[in-house]
């Protein structure tokens, strides 16, 4: 077992009170597993990723644990986490492509990062070049400024950089969203290749694009309003989803192999609740077509079959 997260609670402090962005998240990740994390904007996907690597100033670890390769991650302790970052847990942050320092050549930037970790650039150079070539880039990009590379090229540089130290866990946050279809596919397939070649042991791939994550994930978790509402093998989530929210998400996806004519897909009415004061009971209640009185109480997490967990009163 690479990662074991139990009842994780992480809040953002605001003037109005705590935003409960992660409100009791539990899941585990096996060696070699790629898990996709999907859900609407604001449901807490980025927060979950950040919690496993670096809390920003306004985030507070309220409860729960994350154990990586048998060792508990010191989530709330920035200094102690520093020893784990990049080496054991690494992240490709959302918008990282545009966050590359524009005044540094790629090679120089990587050298500085390695030096800050007490590692020698010269020692890593051969492996770095080998991996750049693996993703279709040449050594020449090391002499480029970020602005000289296309979006797809920058994204591949960031992928090579964040996995250079062979971390146990990689979190990839919306790494394909800004790319066109051809680059999306290339980048997504590179993630799988990095796992297959052992550059990373396991991976959390964050995205709001279910059809993309279905292509590469072994398991998919669907998140809603700070909680995981369904988790199952990728095939099961897509072919036989149980949670009404998962079903609605899939029902709203236009596809290319079908002919629609004047037929229209259904959107999900309403909006997710505010996490400042989340409602009691099932959080999807206000938008759920199946909601009934019992949903005013917190739904249990039911294991409908091995590896398929659903938090809904009507799961069976």
């Amino acid at each position, binding site marked *: 077992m690479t990662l074991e997260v139990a009842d994780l609670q992480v809040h953002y402090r605001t003037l109005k009170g705590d935003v409960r962005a992660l409100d009791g998240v539990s899941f585990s990740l096996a060696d070699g597993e790629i898990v996709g994390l999907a859900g609407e*904007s604001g449901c807490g996907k980025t927060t979950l990723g950040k919690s496993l690597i670096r809390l920003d100033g306004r985030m507070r670890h309220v409860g729960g644990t994350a154990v990586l390769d048998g060792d508990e991650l010191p989530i709330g302790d920035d200094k102690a986490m520093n020893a784990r970052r990049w080496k054991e847990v690494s992240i490709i942050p959302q918008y990282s492509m545009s966050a590359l320092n524009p005044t540094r050549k790629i090679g120089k930037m990587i050298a500085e990062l390695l030096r800050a970790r007490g590692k020698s650039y010269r020692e890593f150079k051969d492996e770095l070049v080998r991996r750049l070539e693996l993703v279709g880039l040449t050594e020449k990009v090391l002499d480029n400024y970020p602005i000289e590379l296309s979006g797809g090229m920058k994204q591949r540089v960031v992928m090579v950089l964040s996995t250079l130290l062979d971390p146990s866990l990689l979190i990839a946050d919306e790494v394909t969203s800004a790319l066109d279809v051809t680059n999306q596919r290339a980048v997504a397939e590179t993630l799988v290749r990095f796992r297959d070649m052992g550059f990373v042991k396991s991976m959390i791939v964050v995205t709001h*694009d*279910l059809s*993309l994550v*279905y292509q590469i994930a072994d398991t998919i978790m669907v998140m809603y309003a700070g909680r995981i509402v369904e988790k199952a093998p990728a095939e099961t989530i897509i072919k036989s989803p149980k949670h009404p929210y998962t079903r609605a*998400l899939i029902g*709203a996806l*236009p596809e290319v192999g079908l002919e*629609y004519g004047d037929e229209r897909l259904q959107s999900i009415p309403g909006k997710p609740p505010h996490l400042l004061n989340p409602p009691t009971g099932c959080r999807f209640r206000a938008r759920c077509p199946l909601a009934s009185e019992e949903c005013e109480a917190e739904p249990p997490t039911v294991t409908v079959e091995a590896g398929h967990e659903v938090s809904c009163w009507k799961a069976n």
Partner: protein
Amino acid sequence: MLELKHVWKSYRIGALGSKRLTAVRDVSIDIAPGEVLSVVGESGSGKTTIGKMVLQLTSVTRGEILLDGEDVTAHGHAERKAYYRKVQGVFQDPFSSYNPIFKADRIFETVRESYFPGVKRAEWTARVEDVLQGVRLDPGSVLDKYPHQLSGGQLQRMLIARALLLDIKVLVADEIISMLDASTRIDVLNLLGELKERGLGVLFITHDLSLANYISERVVIMRHGAVVEAGATGKVFTDPRHPYSRNLLASVPQLHRKWSDGTAEPEALEPDGDRDVAPPPLTEVDEHHWVAAAP
């Protein structure tokens, strides 16, 4: 209604505009009332440039753009203003179209100031509420709010509502879906479907073939500034004849077929050549289906 005839665009690039880059090459397309035409292609293929030329945000290097048979090139402020009564655009990042220090509904006020200064306040409010209802927004929950208090989908729909205040004929929608969340995407797409039922022509620019497939009856596929395949959406997407179109389709993530199920490697494509020579002409391979000849 809207017609592009052999349109070319070259940008000046490099120091002092010493070099040129031909971004659009000999493109001819047309949009009828009540129709969504999708323009798809990889990043850099020239899609946005076409939208910008239609909206007169950049000049046409060669060829012409006609609206109801007349050249649209505006000479002077008054002609430009008259043109924008009929043709409007909405772009990828809804947030960038709003000034964060003003309330979002200011976008409606600016339309009143420049186009309808004579309309009484009460009547104007009624019109704004009407177009908001038209894009399925609840006026009470979006008026009098700052942009950061609204979602991307709401802001995007308000921009479409603003265009509708002008009773436009053509809407240029450039990647308006890609920044939106899975659940709001379908709302905005369905809204485009309603607009076409009202008789609007929509130029829908996207790199996402599943969106194009869902909403448009005709599609144009672009590569290196030129059209490589065009025709009825059903034909182009079920029977793509150009290797570039086939590669694009093979990259689209689908729920009923995984990438890993297809064994075919991407097909080899002609490299980018001299962009100043005319691209290969389109030949009709089937009814409502055209493909660029092999060069």
